[in-house]
Each structure stands twice: as structure tokens, then as C-alpha cells.
């Protein structure tokens, strides 16, 4: 079954067409990669799906709990509640908050309290809060960050921040996660660990993973299917093996004959 479908999406910035009539489908439970040369419009695709941008044309169909929804009918902050969560290319953490609080923000939609219950600590508060805290500690333990729970997020090294952002996404109990360059700034051994982690996350939490990545090693290792885009247009969609031997993709990355 298809989890996410992008149909004929077009996003323009003034005269520049950043995403041009793009269509692809993401299979449920798969790890799906979106690759392309610099400036191909990958992050724009992400931002359009998660409603930070308004695409001019097209549809983004998400299948969740048996029903089909067009994400373009929703606002940015409603997306998380539909079971779609994302990370950012430049790690966006809540720096002045602790690691644990960062995680708990991820559970924002799952903690059903209002300010009166919170302010006066009315019955029901403790249970809901503790559920979220227990879950946060489980995920931190899973990611190996348990010891850092009470430290500030912006005092953590880059690798930890990346993991924390991943953990925060898991807190929102998503069905599909969108990762914007999860391996950026990591060395080879860290990237290897990340690919293991992503596979583990997919199996443990029953997720669909959709990632944008520059690191070809990672993409070719773990992705079940890949779509390649250039200048906002889809060049081809296929398995890593098909992509590797495709002359069109090589042309997009390395340039065509006429440019030499």
C-alpha cells in the first residue's frame, strides 16, 4: 500500500520553478530516498509536504488510519497530528531547554491537558505527564542519550543533537518520518551507525522513512526505493541498483557530454 503520494506538485518562487510537476509514491514500511544534485529542490519538496511552503499545484495524499487525506488542506502545525513528522537540514532544537523537555515537546499532541489542569495540577495531570516522560526516557535509552536527559540541548555535540532531533520526531508517534539530510556532517563510521539505527527505528516503531540525503553510500545501503530529481523534475524512480546504472542520473550528477 502507498503511504504517501505526491501528485503533480509544482512550487514556484517568483519566476523560478523550484519543483516542477513532480510525482512519486512512497510504499508503506519502506525506506524511501529523495536524491538530486545541489539546488535540485529536495528541501523544497519536504517543505511543501510539511506545509512550510504552499505549492501552487498538485496534491499530497497521505494514507493514515485507513483514510486518505490531502495534506495541502491542512496547516503546518496540524501535520504532526496526522502522523507525519520531520527533521530539519540545519538541526532545529530548542536550545535553552533540556534534552528531556525537547523530547516532551515532541509529544505535544499526545499530552491532552489544558492550562487549568496544568496550572492547578488537577487530577489526571500526573498520569498523562508521567506517561510521556516514561516514553521519552525509553526513546532516549534506545538512542543512548539517557544520561544527558537533564542537560541543555544547545550544550550537546552535533552528533547528539542530530540523534535528539530524531528522538523528538519519534515522540510524536508518527507513521511516517521525513528526515532532511540525517547524515550531514557525519564521518563514515557515524554514517554506518546511522544506517543501522534507521533500519532499527523502522522495524521497532513500524514506520515509513522518507529521507533526503547527499551521502550516496547511506542512500544506496538502506533505501528500498529512490526518486532522483533535478531542477525540480523527477528524472527517474527505482531501486538503488537501477539508479546506479541509469545514464540519466549520471548525467544529472556529472553533467552531460555537451558540457565538456
Amino acid at each position, binding site marked *: 500500500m502507498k503511504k504517501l503520494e505526491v501528485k503533480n506538485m509544482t512550487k514556484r518562487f517568483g519566476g523560478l520553478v523550484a519543483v516542477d510537476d513532480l510525482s512519486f509514491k512512497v510504499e508503506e514500511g519502506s525506506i524511501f530516498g529523495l536524491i538530486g544534485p545541489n539546488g535540485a529542490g529536495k528541501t523544497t519538496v519536504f517543505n511543501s509536504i*510539511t506545509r*512550510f511552503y504552499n505549492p501552487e499545484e498538485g496534491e499530497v495524499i497521505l494514507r493514515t488510519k485507513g483514510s486518505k487525506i490531502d495534506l495541502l488542506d491542512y*496547516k*503546518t*502545525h*496540524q*501535520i*504532526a*497530528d496526522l502522523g507525519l*513528522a*520531520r527533521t*530539519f537540514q540545519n538541526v*532545529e*532544537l*530548542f*536550545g*535553552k*531547554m533540556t534534552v528531556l*523537555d525537547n523530547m*516532551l*515537546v*515532541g509529544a*505535544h*499532541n499526545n*499530552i491532552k*491537558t*489544558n*492550562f487549568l489542569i*496544568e*496550572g*492547578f*495540577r488537577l487530577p489526571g*495531570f500526573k498520569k498523562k*505527564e508521567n506517561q510521556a516522560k516514561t516514553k521519552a526516557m525509553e526513546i532516549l535509552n534506545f538512542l543512548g542519550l539517557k544520561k544527558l536527559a*537533564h*542537560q541543555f540541548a544547545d550544550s550537546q555535540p552535533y552528533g547528539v543533537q542530530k540523534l535528539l532531533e530524531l528522538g*523528538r520526531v519519534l515522540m*510524536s508517534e508518527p507513521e511516517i518520518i521525513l528526515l532532511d539530510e540525517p547524515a550531514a556532517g557525519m564521518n563514515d563510521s557515524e554514517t554506518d551507525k546511522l544506517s543501522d539505527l534507521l533500519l532499527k527505528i523502522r522495524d521497532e516503531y513500524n514506520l515509513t522513512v522518507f529521507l533526503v540525503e547527499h551521502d550516496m553510500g547511506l542512500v544506496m545501503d538502506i533505501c528500498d526505493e529512490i526518486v532522483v530529481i533535478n531542477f525540480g523534475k523527477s528524472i527517474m524512480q527505482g531501486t538503488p541498483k537501477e539508479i546506479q546504472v541509469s545514464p540519466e542520473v549520471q548525467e544529472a550528477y556529472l553533467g552531460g557530454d555537451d558540457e565538456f
Partner: protein
Amino acid sequence: MAFFKLFNNNPYFKYILGSIIFVIIVFIDLQLGLFASRTVNLLIRVVYFSVVAIGFNILLGYAGQISLGHAAFMGFGAYLTAFISNNYGLGFLPTIILSGLIPMVFGVILGLVALRLERLYLAIATLGIGVTIEFVFREWVWFTNGFSGARLSRPEIFGFAFNNSRHFLLLSTIILFIVILFTYNLINSKTGRALSAMRDSGHAAQAMGISLFKYKLIAFALSAFYVGIAGSLYAYAERYVHPSTWGAELSLDMLAMVVIGGLASIGGSVTGAGFLVFVPRLVQDLPLIGEITNINFILTGLAMILVIRFMPIGIYNWFDYKFIQPFYIKRLNLNKPGGDD
């Protein structure tokens, strides 16, 4: 040892202990007349300015939104208290709550403005409100009694009249502690986390399902409510409300309290309020320096510069990190910093 452990592990403990000590002091004072009545009046000022600073800190320290027009809400709360108790004769509690709720509605309207503006532009726009409001209060005679100022009688709860300012100090302190506990609880739960998240990264907050629209309005509404309540306490304490009190200077004083005391900290808010009330008074008694006119503004400005330069986290937080937390860690052999704010 067990005592320190209790202190560190139970976040309420320090507030409850603080309030018990305070109430005991005030009771002894009631019997023996420990403080001069001037000191009692200053303490009342500290109490209502603490409520103001906590409200302002929710906005600036936690939610990261700025307003330089918050004196308007305090003035509005004070005038509402005078108006309601003079014309409708409602008791203390309904009056003070109404004096918080009505400014809250205007706070929401200011929040709608804040959705469109950010940072410096928001500061400029709200400063405009702060400057204008003084003149609005002067001209709006049927509500504010214009230049002559509004007067009101002593507060009364269930037939008990607070004729003595020492009694009123006790009452306002109880209100302050309710405000502190409510705020503390709120900050350490979903709403508070959402406000801080919005301050640190708007994009990530939205991606996690936080509606910036909703939480900006909540921040402005809450802070206007607190400041309105503080205005009401002001009116009951001074029993005279004059338009020139609510100028831009007061809004800037609120900013100074929060910055000097400590951003995003309840203790810092109270410290800042205490600083701004007591320090100018103490200096006024000094020879030579005390004779300079407007010495309080000079001092506030100087203190702000020094705090920003040498302890940007604020006096309270600086003291907390430097002395109190290392003390706990040493005593309890903790390897992580404790405490919550």
C-alpha cells in the same frame, strides 16, 4: 542531609518554605510592629511588582515575545478596580479577577498584532501603545476621573476589611504565592514547554504540532492577566490611581525587572521586582548621590548594562548557578544540576 535532599527533589518545597517563613515574619510583625510602616509599603510594592514581573517574564523570558506597552494593562487593571468597586461595590475577589480578565481580552488583541510583527518592530509598535495610553487615561474622564485621579476604599473579603497595610501585605503575598505556584506548574507542563519551544525555534515548534497562533495569543493573554491583577493590587494598596503613573517609564521598568532579575525564571522575576523597588530607595538616603534627581532611572539603566555585561542570565540565575547548585551537588554527590528554574 535529608533536609537538603527534600529541598532539591521537591520543587514546591522551596516555595512552600519561603511562603511559611514569610507568613511567620508578617505575623510577628503584626504583633510587634517589626517594620516601619514605610517598609511595609515598600514590601507591598515588591509583591505587586513581582506579579507584574512574572507576567512579563512569561511573555519575554518564556515565549520570547516583547511588549513595551504593558504599563497599559497594569493601569487598566488599576482603573478597573477603582471603577468596579466605586460603581458596583463588588468585593475584593471578584473585582481583582475582573481586573485581570478584562485586560486579558485586550492582551489577546495585542497578541493578534504580534502575529504580524516580530522583534524590533513589535517593540516599536507596543512602545507606541505604551506612550499613548497615558494620554488615553487622562482624557477618558468618565472611566478614569482624568487628572484628578480615581480613589477607592479599602479592600474587604467576607466582611473583613483590610484597614491595616500589614494585613494587606499578608493578603497580597498570598495572592503572589498562588500566582507563583500556578506559573511554576504551567511552565513545567505542556503549555510552558510549547511557549519555550516557540521562543527557541518557531519552525521546529510548528513541525511538532504547536500552533504559533494559539500560543502567541496565550502568552499575551496570560501576561496581560497577571499584569492586570497586579494593577488591581496596586489600586487597593495605594487607594489612588493617577494617569501619569502609567507612562512608558513603567513599561521600561518592567523590562528592567525581568532582565536584571533573570529571564525565564520565576525567582528572577521576584528578585528583579525587589531590586527595582528597594535599590533606588536605599540610594536616595545616601548623601550626595541621593540628591540627584531621577537617580532611580540612572541606577536602573546602569544596573541593566552591568547585568547584561557581566551576568547575562540575570542576578537570580547567576547566584543560583554559581552558589546554590554547586552547593547541592557537593552535598548530595549529584552529577547533574538540580532545581528547576
